[in-house]
């Protein structure tokens, strides 16, 4: 643990850190472009030059390991002069097209210019080196060669992280440019990350380009629900509309990255198929209902079934996209308000789902592990057993929470199982199963609710509500609380309370609180602290 001085502050840091990292720990940002904590050190931008006592030349912070007794000056006259000079070099051939650049507002050239630069341009415009604009690199990414500062973060990402090596630097000197190797496309499943690592506006996302100025967007930290890995993300949104997901750093889950499929996953939440209001079946169609009306109808259906066929004739299937809290509330409702033990989890993924040994998991559900911890999933045949019971007339009323049974089991099977069953459906969107429902309760999608999911490695992570669900939809836990009150059960007032109750009754969660989970998640007792890859 070396102790050193940075800009007059004494600090003791872990061994092996570089000066940029150490400075960060005391809240000092050493300006930098090429350094990225997830990539190898390249040392090419020369922006992070700092003064170190007893070393005559300025040193680059990214390639200087801290040592005991080191005295670092990041803002001395010499250091600042050098930083300003580097910035000036970077800007001479830059097109200065911020007004039409997507990176504006999150561009390190802009940021540092305001801090260190702010001098007049010395280079006549016509003398600038001209390079390619709007160069198509692949399905996700577009390159503007003139904005590129050749920091090599993107090439290092493709060399070191995906090891797909699509990108290289071609030509020499100020004619250098990023390009694809012949015959290659930047189409690896993680290609969108190069846009995030690019410190300037050279690499932009085809999906996000020209859609919004970043300073108008709000950012909410959450978790990706595209698969069981649960990459940590930020949701960028405005007025109930999501514009993009970006990875949020979590060394134990996704480091700095996420996959392209996850990146596009936000679109799945804003389809036309969202259910706007509660619905109650009226013959062959649905009638719009109030929450109270639908809740009452659901309670009546349950009680009637219970009276006619007994409590075990009421069952529930919980999809593994439901949060821990939702799954807990529904299974508790069955157990305590109805007296049924028939709650089953369902974690269905397409058999041929793409996966790899990096982040993309074959299980396309965010909370399979959670359902296991709650005792709802064991061998995997639980939901199937309930359907069989329904086919044999033993299940007469069925709650379906966040699961499209038709996709999982096929139309024919569901027709046989649910044709005569009262179905109370809680979901975000219309799907094949909606047709079999008698009562439909619209609930919030992942970005619209608070709650937790447990990823494949057993790490409990939080979803955060970025904005309220559309129409009259309610957060799943609120919808379930409402059902509970209609069945004479307890109400729930907040997600923290629900989580608290969950920890009381599920051993794996003992000792946890919603607050403790924080933004980085917590491994469940017995689960390893890192992904099992």
């Amino acid at each position, binding site marked *: 643990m070396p102790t050193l001085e940075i800009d007059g502050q004494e600090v003791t840091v872990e061994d092996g850190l570089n000066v940029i990292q150490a400075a960060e720990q005391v809240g000092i940002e050493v300006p930098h472009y090429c350094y990225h904590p997830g990539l190898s*050190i*390249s*040392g*090419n*931008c*020369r*922006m992070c*030059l700092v003064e170190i006592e007893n070393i005559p*030349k*300025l040193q*680059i912070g990214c*390639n200087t390991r801290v040592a005991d007794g080191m005295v670092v000056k990041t803002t001395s006259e010499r250091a600042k002069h*050098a930083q300003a*000079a*580097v910035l*000036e*070099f*970077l800007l*001479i*051939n830059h097109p200065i097209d911020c007004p039409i650049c997507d990176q504006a507002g999150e561009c390190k050239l802009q940021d540092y210019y305001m801090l260190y630069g702010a001098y007049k341009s*010395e*280079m006549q415009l016509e*003398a600038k*080196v001209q390079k390619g604009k709007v160069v198509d690199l692949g399905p996700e990414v577009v390159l503007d060669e003139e904005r590129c*500062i*050749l920091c*090599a973060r993107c090439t290092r990402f493709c060399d070191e992280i995906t090891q797909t090596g699509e990108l*290289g*630097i071609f*030509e*020499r*000197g*100020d*004619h*250098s440019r990023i390009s694809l190797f012949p015959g290659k496309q930047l189409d690896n499943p993680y290609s969108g990350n190069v846009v995030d690592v690019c410190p300037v506006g050279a690499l932009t996302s085809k999906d996000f380009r020209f859609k919004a100025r970043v300073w108008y967007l709000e950012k909410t930290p959450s978790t990706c629900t595209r698969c069981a890995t649960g990459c940590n993300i930020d949701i960028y949104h405005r007025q109930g509309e999501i514009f993009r997901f970006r990875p949020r750093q979590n060394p134990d889950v996704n480091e700095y990255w996420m996959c392209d499929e996850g990146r596009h996953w936000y679109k799945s939440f804003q389809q036309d198929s969202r259910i706007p209001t509660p619905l109650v079946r009226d013959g062959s169609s649905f009638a719009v209902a109030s929450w109270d009306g639908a809740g009452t109808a659901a309670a009546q259906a349950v009680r009637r079934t219970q009276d006619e066929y007994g409590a075990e004739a009421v069952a529930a299937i919980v999809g593994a996209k439901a949060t821990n809290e939702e799954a807990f509330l529904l299974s508790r409702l069955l157990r305590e308000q109805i007296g049924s033990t028939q709650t089953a989890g369902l974690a269905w993924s397409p058999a041929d789902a793409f996966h790899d040994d990096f982040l993309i998991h074959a299980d396309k559900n965010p909370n399979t592990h959670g359902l296991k911890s709650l005792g709802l999933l064991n061998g995997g045949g639980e939901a199937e057993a309930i359907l069989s019971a329904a086919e044999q007339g033993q299940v007469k009323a069925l709650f379906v929470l966040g699961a499209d049974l038709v996709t999982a089991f096929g139309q024919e099977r569901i027709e046989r199982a649910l044709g005569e069953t009262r179905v109370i459906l809680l979901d975000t969107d219309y799907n094949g199963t909606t047709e079999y429902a008698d009562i439909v309760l619209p609930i919030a999608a992942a970005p619209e609710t608070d709650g937790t999911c447990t990823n494949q490695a057993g790490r409990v992570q939080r979803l955060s509500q970025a904005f309220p669900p559309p129409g009259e939809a309610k957060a799943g836990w609120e919808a379930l609380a409402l059902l509970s009150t209609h069945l004479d059960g307890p109400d729930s007032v907040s997600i923290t309370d629900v989580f608290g109750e969950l920890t009381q009754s599920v051993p794996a969660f003992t000792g946890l609180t919603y607050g403790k989970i924080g933004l980085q998640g917590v491994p469940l007792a017995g689960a390893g602290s890192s992904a099992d890859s």
Partner: protein
Amino acid sequence: MAENVLLRHEDVPDIHKLDVYLAHDGYVAARKALTTLKPEEVTALVKESNLRGRGGAGFPAGVKWGFLPKDSDKPVYLCCNADESEPGTFKDRAIIEKNTHILLEGILITCYAINAHMAYIYIRGEFAYGAKCLERALAEAYDQGLFGKDIFGTGFDLEVYVHRGAGAYICGEETGLIQSIEGKRAYPRIKPPFPAVYGLFGCPTIVNNVETLACVSSIIKNGPDWFRSIGPESGPGPKIYGVSGHVEQPGMFELPMGMPLREVIYDYAGGIKDGKQLKAVMPAGSSFPVLTPDEIDVHMDFDSMRAIGAFLGTAGIIVMDEDTCMVRALEIIDRFYHHESCGQCSPCREGTGWLHKLLVRLEEGNGKAEDIDLIDRICTNMMGNTVCVLADAAAMPTQSYLTKFRAEFVAHVTAGGCPLKKAAAQPEAA
């Protein structure tokens, strides 16, 4: 001086042929080293000799060899830097083509000293003939058992590969060279780690210049005292001075280290062509400060040159007479660095191009008075802050031209172009 060491072909015709070389004490030093000395004894002799690197920086060779880690279980590599791309420099090429075996013998002894069993000769791509000479000489030497397995029956094995370069000045920078051998872009690496610790394929590596390695056999043969007696103690030995430009007899001269520059130009290269006056000398290739006529009494060795703010570099001496336009000369130099910057570091990538554009502007008569100070400021900002010293190699001569020939730059601004050119274009007064 007595017989040439490095340019021995001038004394012994066909010395590049193995039989001729062997007939003139060839590989005697190598045999002595391998059969009678321990590797560390060879290194000690080279250290004692004060042999300093001829690639430009003048680093003591024996000291560099001593930086190899003692406890590494990785193989050690020797890279012979034969990329010779420095403007005004053509000494290594002569050794490679005309005195090939003295280089190969130096490589053999050096590999033995540093315990390397594999050596690469990284030769500038354009030196097709030189590469052929090396291949031919190596084939002969392999045939005689001087390379390969169990050399001189000592159990010492050595393989030598000739690797033709990838066509850029930056391939001569030692870590760019290493990258290039590895099949990568010749982007110089950040240091530390230095090649002695983390070099070729991540293994301990020594990079030495051709002329440096060509000195090694003479040290083993004649002893370090002999070597130190040639020129100044602090950096002695035989040295090739290459003279080009406006002299009567351009060419190469093997002389002791520390020759007065004036003597080299006037006594050996025959003085300024057509009886003209000397205006400027670049004594060290193009990467170091220019000298004015009143500075040429300096002795050409590492320390004497440093004492006057100059460098020995490659001792490639470029002579310019009174009719030379210094703005144009500098424009050509900076065009070179602009063309050759690898483009990795922001100050170098952008700075070299910027300098060149400003100089073209001045030369074309479109320069502004402020440009001169701007050029100076750009140089200051480029220096000392990059991965390799190419940025300095561009900035140093540039600043020295501005300082020493400022009036010419100012005149280009006020006259709206080159006054010399304009004068030449004037019809002669009748």
